[in-house]
């Protein structure tokens, strides 16, 4: 019942076969993920090893956090291609700022940079009415360019400092990124399903005109979702630089593709108006588990790309079929 804001049919006990369908549609991404895990646990002994699973979760957390913000943008009917560049820019600025002002101030500065990039994207889309694809494509090049300029295209490093815990630390035996991941998803889910803001995001994506005529401040909502997305990228970037103890202008390349793939596999409509963050989480894990499985089977990175593409297409086809049947 948590995801009722966009269930394609009633939540309260529809007739048998249809109930099965709506469950399939709602939990489709999770079922797909479970199936994939089942196959891997049979074909590979290493897969179910706790160390392997924890490792997968830690790797997935970066993309999943970016994808959570992307879900907001895509439910509102938008798109953000600049997340990879925002990650690079906030990462290099973060390292440099920490070197100059210490960890706490540096982290605040890097989050502020990421948030500002998102805000700028949002302002362009909402107020200058530039198509989201174009606005964020421009952002993608600009932020990447700035990152190259400030680092002169050399990597920047910071060895030592407590900020590394965000990437390398453990708590009760689990890596910190997994905790961050859980917090981000719980907050995102609550915001989307339980707040007036969340409902407005769905309304703007579903029917902008109706939202506007109901007094929803469409521009503000659009700006906010991009800002949220940018902030999420900042958090993801912190996890990465904490692990690598360095950053460079070329990191995060193609991060937007993985994030959008996770959202789409998770069942969010490209047209806007529907979607769930937990679908996105399942989508991100599907990609991560798939990569891991192919690694365990010694299949080359090149084939991993192909497999990822096939899974994206399959997920969308199945989703469409189920929704259509309803």
């Amino acid at each position, binding site marked *: 019942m948590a995801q009722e804001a966009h269930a394609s049919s009633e939540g309260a006990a529809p007739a048998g076969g249809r109930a099965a369908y709506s469950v399939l549609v709602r939990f489709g991404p999770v079922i797909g993920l479970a199936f994939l895990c089942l196959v891997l646990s049979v074909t590979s002994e290493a897969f179910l090893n706790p160390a392997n699973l924890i490792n997968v979760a830690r790797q997935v957390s970066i993309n999943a956090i970016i994808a959570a913000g992307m879900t907001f943008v895509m439910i509102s009917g938008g798109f953000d291609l600049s997340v990879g560049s925002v990650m690079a820019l906030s990462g290099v600025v973060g390292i440099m700022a920490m070197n100059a002002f210490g960890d706490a101030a540096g982290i605040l500065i890097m989050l502020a940079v990421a948030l500002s990039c998102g805000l700028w994207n949002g302002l362009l889309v909402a107020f200058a009415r530039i198509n989201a694809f174009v606005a964020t494509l421009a952002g993608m090049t600009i932020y990447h360019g700035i990152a190259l300029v400030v680092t002169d295209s050399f990597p920047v490093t910071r060895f030592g400092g407590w900020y590394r815990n965000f990437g390398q630390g453990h708590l009760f035996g689990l890596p910190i990124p997994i905790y961050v991941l859980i917090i981000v998803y719980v907050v995102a889910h609550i915001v989307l399903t339980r707040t007036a803001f969340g*409902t407005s995001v769905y309304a703007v994506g579903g029917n902008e005109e109706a939202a506007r005529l109901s007094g929803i401040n469409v521009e503000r909502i659009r700006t906010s979702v991009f800002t949220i997305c940018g902030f999420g990228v900042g958090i993801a970037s912190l996890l990465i630089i904490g692990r690598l103890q360095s950053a460079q202008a070329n990191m995060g390349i193609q991060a937007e593709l993985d994030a959008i793939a996770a959202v789409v596999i998770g069942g969010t409509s490209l047209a806007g108006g529907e979607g769930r963050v937990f679908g996105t989480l399942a989508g991100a894990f599907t990609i991560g588990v798939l990569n891991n499985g192919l690694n365990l089977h010694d299949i080359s990175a090149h084939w991993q790309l192909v497999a990822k593409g096939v899974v994206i297409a399959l997920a969308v086809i199945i989703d469409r079929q189920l929704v259509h049947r309803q």
Partner: protein
Amino acid sequence: MSALLTMEGISKAFPGVQALSKVDFEVIPGEAHALIGENGAGKSTLIKILAGVHRRDAGEIRFEGNDYRVANPHEALAMGVAVIYQELNLVQKLTVAQNIFLGHEPLHRAGFVATREMNARAGEILKELGISIDPRTPVEALGVAQKQMVEIAKALSRASRILVMDEPTAPLTQSEIEVLFRVIAGLKEQGLGIIYISHRLDEVFQIADRVTVLRDGERVHSSEVSETQIDRLVLAMVGRRLAEEEPPLEVPEDAPVALEAEGLSDGRVVQDISLQVRAGEVVGLAGLIGSGRSEFAHLLFGSEAAAGGEARLMGETLSGGVPQRIAAGLGMVPEDRKLQGLVMQLLVKENSTLATLDKYTTGGFIRRPAHESRVQEIIAELRIATRGPRQSVKALSGGNQQKVILSRWMDTGARALIFDEPTRGVDVGAKAEIYALIRELQKRGVAILMISSDLPEVLRISNRVIIIRNGRVAGELSRKEATQEKVLRLMMGADESDNGV
């Protein structure tokens, strides 16, 4: 004459509702068979089965003597069965001609679309319908009524055996309706079968030969039109007698002006409109399509920017956009429920409180129990036929969707409301409920500006009628003075009225 189409024992269930049970329906060549019934009676479902949109659960359909099975609308069109759906289905970005010929574009020998021929043929069909739209205009630039005429043109270009019209006249005004009826008469002469769905019973008597009434998914009445009367049809539809119509409430002499426009113009259609609506007064706004009524409403509501003039509410100048004006106590029900009213992906509860969500939140969080129980009350008050606050609005019948949009403004504490075609596509029973609601709002001292193309309705519930022509106020009639003829004459311009309206 042998039947063109026979539907026997058609049944169809949706989750939680039996939309149709064992319905029989028949059309013979050259007849118009009217299908009427309350909102949610199953009319649209029946024709969607015919059109291949829905699959029937049970029943037989025979078409020209043969078994009729279509899997999708495309196959139905190929058989010569064309449908004008209740909701507009045009591609906004394409031109009028592209929409009319969507899916069956005339082609050059090389396989390219013969654009010039397509535009020319579209132009002819439009001319037949008596409308002057350039076929190259993008559909998004048209008003609702013009879009409806394009839908009609689109269906006309494809119907060779049966033409189904699901409330074709809802967005149209008198003069277009007359053109449409002439076209229908012509099609009947050519031997087509017409299925005609409408909530306006007078139209049924004007153009239909037979009439079938559905109630709760069952056929409850079927007869020749010449052998029945309005009262009997209404009784069959609603299963009870409706309360007597009450005249509108008198507005107290000392009621203050609540909503006021002074010299509003948008620099395009609307030219310098001034009017006043007093607290507790219903002012009807009449006018032809394209006269600028809806555009004026958007200027008042702040959803379009005014080029000149100002709007005032309770004496205060209204500035800013929609959110500010809603906060000041204004509300509007827009004319196109699919494009401007509903968010189809959301549920009834969210749609009915889209303008008032903040009332049900604490620190931004929605208080679900309070929210849902209030929506439950609204559903009961307006008698919205839905399984509950958590039903998806997509599954509601057209009339009930309209009620959901109306319900949005019940709770805002609005001082003035603008209703643009509030009863479009709403059945007789629900219409009476909406009129009762308007009276209730009137009693609370809400000023109401109502745009409607249904003239008898305007005359029935307005205290005053203001007529708009070419973006200007063409006249104003008090309730006592206003007659259908006078209003029409002002709508059309005095010189045209001489050669018959």
